[in-house]
């Protein structure tokens, strides 16, 4: 895990901690998240029991807009969208259907969308936000942390945003001062929540 700037497991049982270091390493590799995570601190205390994972992500790619992957050609109320990268076609179609209705969005072939729009409607179409990579990356990250955490910790709380994330989990009700504990762990990696 050379790509990760800070990666530590804190655990009262030395052997258990070292196993979890390996588990976290393997899971992040398997889920292709090594390049996403910048810092990660795991705290596991099986006696309480409690699992806390706090971390910071690398700078994520920005929101994908329509002009990033398609050409928009407007001619007398007829808008032709030529798709360059098919990866974002599905979310784009969903947005267009919601916005203009299915009957106004024609798709003669895989790479072309034709719509009859008024000039007001087609204004700013090129800047339409289509896909936010951070949402799926955070979801993947939280899923990976759930795989890393000891099994059976069914009571969970998770947060992500502003490049930071945390997940706390336990078998029992979470302690009342859980946010203070999370802040303490963030302080260990030199960040604040």
């Amino acid at each position, binding site marked *: 895990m050379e790509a990760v700037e800070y990666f530590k497991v804190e655990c009262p049982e030395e052997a258990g901690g070292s*196993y979890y270091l390996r588990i976290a390493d393997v899971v992040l590799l398997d889920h292709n998240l090594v390049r996403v995570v910048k810092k990660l601190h795991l705290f596991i205390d099986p006696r309480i*029991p409690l699992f806390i994972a706090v971390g910071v992500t690398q700078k994520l790619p920005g929101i994908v807009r329509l002009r990033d992957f398609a050409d928009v050609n407007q001619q007398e109320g007829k808008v032709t969208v030529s798709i360059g990268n098919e990866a974002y076609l599905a979310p784009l179609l969903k947005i267009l259907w919601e916005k203009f209705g299915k009957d106004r969005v024609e798709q003669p072939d895989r790479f072309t969308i034709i719509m009859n729009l008024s000039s007001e409607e087609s204004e700013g179409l090129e800047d339409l936000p289509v896909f936010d990579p951070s949402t799926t990356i955070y979801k993947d990250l939280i899923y990976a942390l759930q795989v890393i955490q000891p*099994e059976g910790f069914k009571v969970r709380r998770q947060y992500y945003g502003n490049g930071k994330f945390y997940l706390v989990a336990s078998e029992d009700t979470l302690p009342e001062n859980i946010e203070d504990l999370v802040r303490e762990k963030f302080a260990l990696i030199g960040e604040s929540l």
Partner: protein
Amino acid sequence: MILVPVTYKGGIYRHDEIMDLIEDLGGYIIQKHVIAQEVVLQALVPKDDIELIRRIGKPLTGEIFASPLVGTEIAVVSPSLEIHHLPHASCDTAEYIRRNGAKTNMVGLARGFGKRIAQLNDEERDVINEHDLAVYLLGDFEACIAHKFPVLRRGITVPIVLCGGPSTEVLKSLIDPPVEGYVGSIGRFMHRTKESEELSRLDEIIEVITAVLDRRRVELAKDPLSVSPARLMNVVNEKVDAIHDVLSPTPVTVQMTGLRVKLPYDTFAIVLKKTEIEGGTTIGDVADIRPSRMRDYILIRVKPFSETNVFI
């Protein structure tokens, strides 16, 4: 005649000669796998005739080696079948034991995860008790193992081999009353077992299981079974035609003290009971025939000589 569990591996060409030879020598073929051009036979053969089989098998590129787990059915118990334990920790261990000749069944507990919330229900308990031995694969933390293992072993009467992340010595110190075997440093992991150190852990599990089963065999030898389960398997295969319609890989599974017959209990319990072994002695005379908790299978438990006064 002492029968020894062995595995024969060789080409498919003329392998029927080896099968005939084993049967002619008085041995029993427990299981036969045909994998592409290769045949793997798991068998019990007379100890003195191993050399003979080796000699005859050599021109057929066959090799024969001892596999002490042939003729046993082992439960590999995992706290759950979630991604935390599957596929690597549980499947790798189960497959390794299987390659050493045992019939393994994986038992994933419905609520075995967690520390305080771990439970074992009656069906799981009964299913585990139908095996010759149970291998428990627990996690990486001492605190968890010490807390949950007493719950998971409640009511289990078969020998237990406990595996977990802490070292073998630590495991021994955690468990009271002691179980039959311990293998440390193999707890929860998320990668395939490829490194030599990990494979040696799996070898250690096989060693411990073998030692535990050997002790059990010595105990059994003091009051031998009225009929060998392998022989009983042959009788069932010969005289109960319906067994040939069963599609399971092992329609009759041999255990150390009995058989699991994969036929419905309601229909076939009476048929089996009345099936003659030899000279008027029926299976019902020398064995208990019970319903299994695993589907609607039949479990045959052979009675010891002291109970029946019959030895076939």
